[in-house]
């Protein structure tokens, strides 16, 4: 496949996602809206009672923002967009027309995850920019995050977005159903994961949970699963597994299934 073809295939995957207004509105609400709400809420709290509520910005506010983007609402936005990327061709019936062009099914699959990641990162970039501005504007005398922490946090959010979007694309490509994928992926990320993390009897098995591995690599403090210590090598291996398995399953189903 030539570079020109690859670039165009990625471009149309992105076009397909960004032209879906409902999807983009919900995803923006999750990634950006939730962050704006958080800063507004904490700013109002601080203004109403400065003695008992810390300023909305500074290091504390930045940490909150990074966790929201990398572990909570940003991840949910990535899952929404990944689900659409993984299922839209199948559920609309366009996949069979694309297969009938003679283009390899693997190539048709290969651009779904990168497109979902790029579209989500565009929203994350806006959210992250808002977070940085709010962090400094609303610091109220609190220490500000260093440039190194900001850059590490940005990289970690890219990682987190990549993981969630790829998971959703893989599951979506296997199931072919938006409903099943959304229920499965969002249910796993928003409900099952917090529950499992709190089941201490699971012990080190919890290190295999994607969110736990992500938390262990997070450059800021706190967060879901942060209490579980995971060696960096283990975390990297866990994340590689979470990246590889859904991708492999999605590719296998796309290549072998009836169109």
């Amino acid at each position, binding site marked *: 496949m*030539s570079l*020109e*073809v690859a670039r*165009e*295939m990625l*471009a*149309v995957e992105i*076009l*397909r996602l960004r*032209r*879906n*207004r409902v999807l983009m509105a919900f995803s923006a609400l999750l990634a950006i809206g939730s962050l704006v709400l958080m800063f507004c809420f904490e700013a109002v709290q601080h203004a109403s009672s400065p003695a008992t509520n810390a300023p909305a910005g500074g290091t504390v506010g930045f940490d909150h923002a990074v966790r929201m983007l990398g572990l909570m609402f940003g991840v949910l936005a990535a899952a929404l967009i990944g689900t659409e990327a993984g299922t*839209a061709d199948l559920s*609309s*019936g*366009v996949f*069979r*027309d*694309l*297969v*009938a*062009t*003679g*283009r*390899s099914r693997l*190539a*048709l699959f290969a651009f779904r995850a990168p497109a979902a990641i790029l579209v989500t990162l565009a929203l994350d970039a806006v959210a992250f920019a808002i977070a940085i501005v709010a962090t400094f504007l609303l610091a109220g005398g609190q220490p500000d995050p260093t440039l190194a922490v900001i850059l590490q946090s940005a990289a970690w959010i890219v990682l987190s977005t990549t993981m969630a979007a790829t998971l959703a694309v893989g599951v979506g490509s296997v199931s072919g159903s938006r409903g099943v994928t959304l229920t499965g992926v969002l249910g796993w990320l928003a409900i099952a994961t917090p529950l499992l993390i709190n089941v201490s009897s699971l012990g080190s098995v919890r290190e295999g949970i994607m969110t736990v591995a992500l938390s262990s690599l997070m450059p800021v403090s706190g967060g879901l699963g942060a209490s579980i210590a995971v060696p960096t090598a283990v975390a990297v291996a866990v994340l590689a597994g979470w990246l590889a398995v859904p991708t492999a399953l999605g590719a296998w189903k796309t290549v072998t299934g*009836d*169109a």
Partner: protein
Amino acid sequence: MTTTANIIETHGLCKHFGRRQAVADLDLSVPRGCAFGFLGHNGAGKTTVIRMLLGLTRADAGTMRILGRPVPAERAAALARVGAIVEEPNFHRHLTGRENLRVSAAARGPDARRRIDAALRRVGLSERADERVRSYSQGMRQRLGVARCLLADPELLILDEPMNGLDPGGILELRTMIARLTGEGRTVFLSSHLLDEVENTCDAAAVIDQGRLVAQGPISELVGGALELDIGCDSPRLALDLLDGDPAIATARQTADGLRIRLAGADGVASINERLVAAGIGVFRLAPVRESLEQRFLEITSRVGGQS
């Protein structure tokens, strides 16, 4: 451009769904440069054959060649000059017509992208190309589907039940478009259960019944397997007696103003006329009565059905 005589060839093609045999030992030959009808009842296996040809589902046995290339072994090269609409043309409804063509063109390559405007013009959708597909009528979606096929500059168009859901105007438009496409030397492979449409649109056809090919060839041969003659004459009784036992005649019966005879073979019309005139019978009409494709289709498919 490849130059094999048949643009589609299958040999021994089989497909099962569980224990049900959807396609059985199918040997199909579609000549190049014509409109070819692929006839069958609903569920006869037409779409399954098309899906196998396009690599949408695997064949259990048999070989297929499209444009002279074996599929699925050389599927990408074979399908590069094939445009297809399977079952119904599907689109991303939130994208415009033009954007949907861009999605398809991206999979085909830069040449296809350059053909988008021309394809839209050709199907008469230029003015509505920037509207979302969700606002399109069924006929417009069908035309957009044809435009998507044209992105490949196809030697072969495979259209699965293209008349479905179209109003009479839409059917006429599509028929005209198919005639133009074949006039350009392209081959149109058209599956349908609408027999009169195939008879009006196609040069040749194949009939599939319960997954088996029961007939194929030029439409004239398919419908003309048994030629009947309508003879208008002034002494029908005498004419019937005269022709009784003639080896060129399979059956004969008297009608109000003459005879209706079924010929045993393609020849014999001239000698029948000669015998009648020589016997002093005034012949004022000698017209072939051809079966419609529908009559022929029902005859051959019900025969197979009766055997199963």
